[in-house]
């Protein structure tokens, strides 16, 4: 049983291939527009490359590729920048939504129908009015990424 959670949580939302995702707002450093990406040869396909973020080098990761959605080059426009284990990571999404405040009691673990390639990165679902919001857990993401990268 999941203990009843109190209070609210703020999430930065974004969409990837029509689905809505969110990351805890405090973990997000900034939201960035399209930037010049320097490809890294031999890197796994979900690594778009490196981005210069005002002198800092961030690694751009395509969420479409990561979630196994078909990658349309033109669809990746915006990115959410966060720090994972000291490294700057730019998560490339399609569009960025609002910062939403959600009630913790509306949180649920992901249903079984969520495909495994997405399911492994999210910790749960928020039932929103008219939409379902999948919450990405950066710690899980970091673990899963290093597994994926070393495959």
């Amino acid at each position, binding site marked *: 049983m999941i203990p009843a959670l109190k209070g609210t949580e703020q999430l930065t939302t974004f969409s990837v291939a029509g689905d809505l995702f969110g990351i805890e707002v405090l973990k997000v450093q900034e939201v960035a527009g399209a930037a010049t990406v320097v490809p890294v*040869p031999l890197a796994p396909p979900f690594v778009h490359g490196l981005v210069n973020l005002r*002198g800092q080098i961030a*690694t751009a990761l395509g969420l479409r590729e990561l979630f196994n959605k078909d990658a349309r080059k033109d669809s990746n426009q915006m990115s959410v920048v966060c720090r994972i284990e000291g490294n700057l990571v730019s998560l490339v999404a399609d569009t960025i939504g609002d910062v939403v405040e959600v009630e913790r009691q509306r949180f649920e673990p992901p249903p079984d129908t969520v495909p495994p390639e997405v399911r492994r990165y999210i910790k749960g679902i928020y039932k929103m009015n008219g939409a379902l919001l999948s919450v990405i857990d950066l710690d899980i993401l970091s673990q899963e990424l290093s597994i994926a990268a070393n495959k």
Partner: protein
Amino acid sequence: MALSQEELEEFNAESLELLEAMEKIFLSLDQGGDFPQSYDFLFRTLHNLKGSAALMELNRLAAHTHELENILVGFKGKDSLPKEYISLFLRGIDATRLVIAGQEVNFDFSVKIEGLRPEAPAPELPQSAVEEFVTECEETIERVAKTLAVMESGSLGKEALDELYRDVHSMKGTAFLFSFELLGATAHAMESSLENVRNETHDCTPELLDALFKSLKQMEMLVQRIKAKQPFEDQAATVQALAETLARTSANLPLRDSKPTNPEAANPGTGSQAKSDEGAGSIRVPVALLDSLMTLMGEMVLVRNQVLQYSNRTEDLEFASMSKRLNVVTSEIQGELMKTRMQPIGNVLGKFNRVVRDLSHELGKGITLSISGAETELDKSLLEAIKDPLTHIVRNSCDHGIETPEVRRKSGKPEAGSISIRAFHEGGQVVVEVGDDGKGLNKEVLLKKAVEKGLITQAQTVHLSEKEIFQLIFAPGFSTAAKVTNVSGRGVGMDVVRTNIERIGGTVDLSSRSGIGTTIKIKIPLTLAIVPALIVKVGDGTFAIPQVQLEELVRVDAQSEQQIEILHGSPVYRLRGNILPLIDLSQLLGLSKEPPARRVTNIAVLNAEGCSFGVIIDEVQDTADIVVKPINRLLKSIQAYSGATVLGDGSIALIFDVLGISKMAQIARERSKSIEASERASATGELQDFLLFSLNSKTTHALVLSYVHRLEVFKASEIENSGQHRVIRYGDLILPLISANAQLGYGDSAGGNAEVPVVVIERRGQLYGIEVNAILDTMSTDIEMTPEMIRQTGIFGNLNMKDRLIVVVDPFELIGRSLGEPVEQELTWSSANARVSDDKLGTASEPRLRNILLVEDNVFFRRSIKSLLEKDGYEVMTANNGEEALDLLGQHSARVALIVSDIEMPRLNGLQLATRVRQQPSLQHIPMMAVSSLADRRAIQRGTEAGFDAYLEKLKPGPLLSKVAELTKRNNGVAA
């Protein structure tokens, strides 16, 4: 803070007054005086006393009064002070007087009655203070170790002695202040034992030095335990024993002169001389702060670069001059900031005094260490990184390099070996050389070992240069120690040394001369954070190659004399006669499947693990100082990159990891090899190894590799003439030189070359050198040799390769010819030759039959087997087929020790020959051996039935020779 005798006396007097005042108050309290009223005065007095004692670095006094103060504080706000504590304080004051008088006091601060001691907990030392204390102790111990080592070598001035004394003294003080009693006691014992030496009344003895070293080691251990927060009380007995040893040895010091010793008078105080040698103008700064400054500096360099690029595009003169100024200032700040991280390498090298001293005792060798360039500065992180590798090298030198005194005496060297460490700047890098005057590396032993360990094959041994042989000791899994000692040879070998050095962008080089010594040269960059690099383009991407690993750039276009060649599907380039393997980076990085067609090829020659290789890049752009930024952990599994950087224009470039690239290419190479091997396995042909070399001819020439004894390069100036022959000293031997060019009719050897590459061949137990123009490579092929159509001496035949023709040379015929021997021996039997051979090979009492009849129709095999057998000292007569063989046997049956025969032959084949031989009584005792490419079980069975004693597959030199030896011996045994 320097303290004069007057100042000290004044302080002591003042302190005694204060103690007296306190004593009065405590006595009045004992009579029922008002404690709360007196408390403030008592506390203030004790506190001040402690404070000024600490200020004047009278540490024992400070520690003592500190403890008293602590006990007093426990009674703050209480109505009265219990009697037990009044007496404790009175005793404490007495003890304080003794401390001021300079006496050793072991005061017991506890009160006898339980439960009465106020709950004031033992003062918890702040962690940061302990850390600082530990750092200080480590530094002091290191300094003391250094000084002691100098002292051991016999020369220590008064000043250095004073410093030593002060160091030990202040360590004692602080140790007691922090209540690390054992540490303090050890330091105290050391201090006392040094007193007479410092006063120059007595001379130091080796026994005392030894005891001092041991004590220092003990202190080191205690400090480590403090650092690790481990208990150290168990060391009490050891400390006690050490103190006794110190006291005993110091009591037995010889008198220096008649000056009366009066240590009491010399320094009765509590260490007025104690003085930290910390320079007044320096402060301690956390390394983390420096690191973050470095990071910011990196950012600033980037901005500077961007500003400069912009200013180049603009017409604004004022801006241009401002940006120039910015450039200069930034570079200066960068330089200065680097210096803050710099530490003299002596901080690490100094440790080796101890290491060498201890090892030299342990191993029973006298080894002296000399260090020069200790002041050479290096980035702190790099200094840390080279510490272990250097220690390993120094230990190796002590253990393997320096011989035992007996061996040294025998070889006419001074009994004491010497190791020298030199550090200096060279071309923006720091070079550290560790040299010893030991036995040097033994090439043969290294080779043997490397083959045993499977690092190289026997075939490879012949064409390794001296340098490459030395490089073997850096190969993983190589250790020359015959047995594992605790000094070195613990599995972690020189490969770890090299890996660690290369990890920080450094290089390791080794040179050695047998009997003279070995020198290992380490080159390291000054710093890691900002490195000079070459910016290149591969495909559409921009990449940086660290300059340290870049040897040179080569540009190849249609006009170039040397073109890129393809060797077994991989591109190679001949760089000044050496084969340079090439890696096409755009292929390696998966940017293009096929090597792109290029009109101009740029090759960057890189060095990793002592081996050079070239990478093909598309464009060379620039050189720049780049700021290395770590790469995301996700990309770590790609070996090709060591980091990334932001370039002047704000774009990002990946930094190549040269070592990683060479490894990736290696894997690729091995893979293609295994594919080749499996393809070969399906083909029927046998592989034959050839050594390729060039002569005064466009065609490449080759030798069967198994004939090659060694490859050498001689200086032309060392070649001498002996009559008509050119010879050269080769170890203890005289090596006759034969010019392949002259013998094959290509004219004289290219004269005027300073260096002459020579292939050393063994023929009938004698070494010969064949001069060639250049040694190119080795090659393994299953292509069958086509016999030379036009009869030409000295040539076996041709290899018709896909892209070229290779002429295979018969070295034995070249040698024979140059010696004036008859050329064709195939059907003739030179009895003179045989006699000479018997004289040479047979023992005096039992002349052995060394004559072999070789029956073989293929010219190449006939010649190569003949050469092989001749090389091993046999006389060989040859026949083209069975009929010829029978003819020869009719004439020479008594002399033939063995018949080696092919099976498939015209006219009379091997099987028929064997049947005939076995039928004739005069021949049937002669052993017969079949050598055939037909060697399946059925063929072998048929051969055995026909009368062959052995059946071998064709041209396997090893088994052939051993079988021949076995069979000839058998025949000789029968004959005797």
